[in-house]
């Protein structure tokens, strides 16, 4: 009798211990029949599902499963009961009586007899609601980051050990192509150094950053698109590290500097142009000085003539700088030259015309000469003399400006004994420089000068 008693005691101790373990587990453990009905449950399952020990045995696990997850769970359990699968895991939502939702990870398996017949099912349930919420927050956070990166106007992409793993819309636009995940290590089609020499993708700043595990700054390159267009840019590749400090990839931002390059170029052109103008102006002054000297009887005659020419040149420049060297209005030019000297005896008439810089300078020289001669020898040397200056669109050619300078009431005219610098200059300016026509005749009533020259056709000139 003692042996039986001893083994009975041992069995009871074992059972008690098993029950204690069963109950002490912080995961939900249950035994269920082939229909999913609860045969036995532990406290943790009650806690997790929010139901009591009395309620659960009357239910199946389908009863508290979210309707959207029920079908999958049912199908898998049926296969398990049949023996098609030995076990399965599923993550599903469970509804508590108070309406709250818990996310459960379920581990389902079977207990079978020696013949393999299904006896009952064992299910372990782990409440992973907190973990799921964390995962969701992380995913939302990641999505927010992606949205931010998408919204930035600069091209941004990231790589890991296998190549490209993210790129934003701006990157696709800049590259002119859709990059492939796994591309090494750039979004661009073809790359060049600023001097035009080819830059292989595995030597680009991003590749250097990854290889040498450091940010690369101060580089500049040119991306060529499949359509042939080229975009100059500055890259900012920066390695990315995990919490332990290991390199896990890199992020790169490509800033399009086309506008900056355009501006730099425009400035260079402008400065070259400026250099050229200044040198030409100095050569012009040299010419004015030497020519005036040639035809002046003495220094007393030289200085006022030379100064007059110099000032006329300066006035033309004034008009041009006022309008940023773009153009000068003809009527204003005429007025500026004539007004200081004429005393109201030069009558001008004609429509508005815009002259380009070169034409304006040439025309200035010409009118200055005509005026100076009129004052020294012509109509304006006498109080009753007058000049009429009229202009308009060319009669035979819409893209020329014709004008006529006519002197009256001056001393009797005798054609000049030899061509002075002034006449040569005027002829040269109009006929040669402007490809126009110049005709100076000395009629008995006074000098008459007709000229015509091309003007630019623009909105302001009709």
């Amino acid at each position, binding site marked *: 009798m003692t042996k039986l008693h001893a083994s009975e005691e041992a069995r009871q101790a074992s059972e008690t211990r098993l029950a204690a373990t069963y109950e002490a587990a912080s995961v939900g453990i249950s035994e269920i029949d082939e229909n999913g009905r609860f045969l036995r449950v532990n406290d943790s399952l009650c806690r997790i599902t929010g139901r009591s020990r009395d309620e659960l045995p009357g239910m199946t696990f389908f009863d508290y499963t979210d309707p959207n997850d029920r079908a999958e769970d049912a199908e898998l359990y049926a296969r398990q009961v049949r023996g098609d699968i030995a076990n399965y895991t599923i993550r599903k939502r469970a509804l508590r009586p108070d309406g709250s939702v818990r996310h459960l990870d379920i581990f389902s398996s079977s207990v079978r007899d020696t013949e393999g017949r299904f006896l009952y099912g064992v299910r372990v349930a782990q409440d992973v609601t907190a973990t799921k919420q964390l995962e969701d927050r992380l995913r939302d956070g990641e999505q927010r980051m992606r949205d931010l990166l998408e919204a930035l106007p600069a091209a941004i992409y990231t790589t890991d050990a296998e190549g490209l793993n993210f790129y934003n819309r701006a990157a696709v636009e800049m590259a002119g192509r859709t990059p492939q995940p796994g591309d090494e290590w750039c979004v661009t089609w073809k790359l060049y150094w600023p001097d035009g020499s080819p830059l292989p993708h595995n030597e680009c700043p991003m590749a250097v950053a990854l290889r040498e595990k450091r940010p690369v700054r101060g580089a500049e390159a040119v991306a060529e698109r499949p359509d042939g267009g080229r975009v100059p840019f500055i890259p900012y590749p920066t390695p990315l590290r995990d919490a332990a400090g290991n390199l896990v990839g890199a992020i790169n931002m490509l800033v399009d500097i086309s506008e900056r390059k355009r501006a730099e170029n425009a400035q260079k052109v402008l400065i*070259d142009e400026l*250099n*050229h*103008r*200044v*040198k*030409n102006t*100095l*050569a*012009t*002054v*040299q*010419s*004015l000085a*030497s*020519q005036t000297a*040639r035809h002046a009887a003495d220094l007393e005659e030289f200085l006022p003539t030379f100064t007059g020419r110099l000032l006329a040149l300066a006035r033309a420049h004034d008009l041009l700088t006022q309008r940023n060297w773009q153009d000068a209005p003809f009527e204003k030019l005429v007025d500026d030259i004539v007004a200081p000297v004429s005393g109201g005896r030069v009558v001008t008439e004609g429509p508005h015309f815009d002259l380009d810089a*070169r034409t304006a300078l*040439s025309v200035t*020289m010409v009118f200055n000469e005509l005026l100076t001669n009129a004052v020294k020898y012509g109509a304006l040397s006498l109080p009753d003399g007058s000049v009429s200056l009229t202009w308009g669109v060319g009669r035979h050619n819409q893209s020329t400006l014709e004008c006529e300078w006519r002197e009256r009431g001056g001393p009797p005219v005798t054609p000049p004994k030899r061509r002075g*610098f002034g006449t*040569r*200059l005027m002829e*040269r*300016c109009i006929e*040669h*420089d402007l*490809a126009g026509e110049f005709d100076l005749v000395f009629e008995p009533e006074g000098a008459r000068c007709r000229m015509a020259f091309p003007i630019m056709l623009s909105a302001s000139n009709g």
Partner: protein
Amino acid sequence: MAEISGTRVLLVEDEGSVALMIEDMLEELGLKVVASAAHVSKACELATKTSFDLALLDVNLAGELVFPVARILRDRKIPFLFSTGYGGPPLEEEFRDAPALGKPFSIEQLSEKLGTLLRHPKL
């Protein structure tokens, strides 16, 4: 400058007063300007058809560069001298070694450059 007396010159220059001055300088040195132009198109025409011994080419003609004219002259094996208002930057690559004179220049400087040009045409 006996050796260059009577030499015929094509003058390409777009600034009227400067052209007059250069013409006067050349005349004083005994050369003769037989053709003159202020625009690239006219200069190309003259460079192709006219007969002359050397050319003086202003690099910038109203915004256009004069190099097409220089190429025609090089093909005809006629020596030329660039006159330039640009500061330092080199002329176009293919003409980097061509003789050039910076504006403004004196008659002495012009004379020296022309002398070298005619003695060693470097064609």
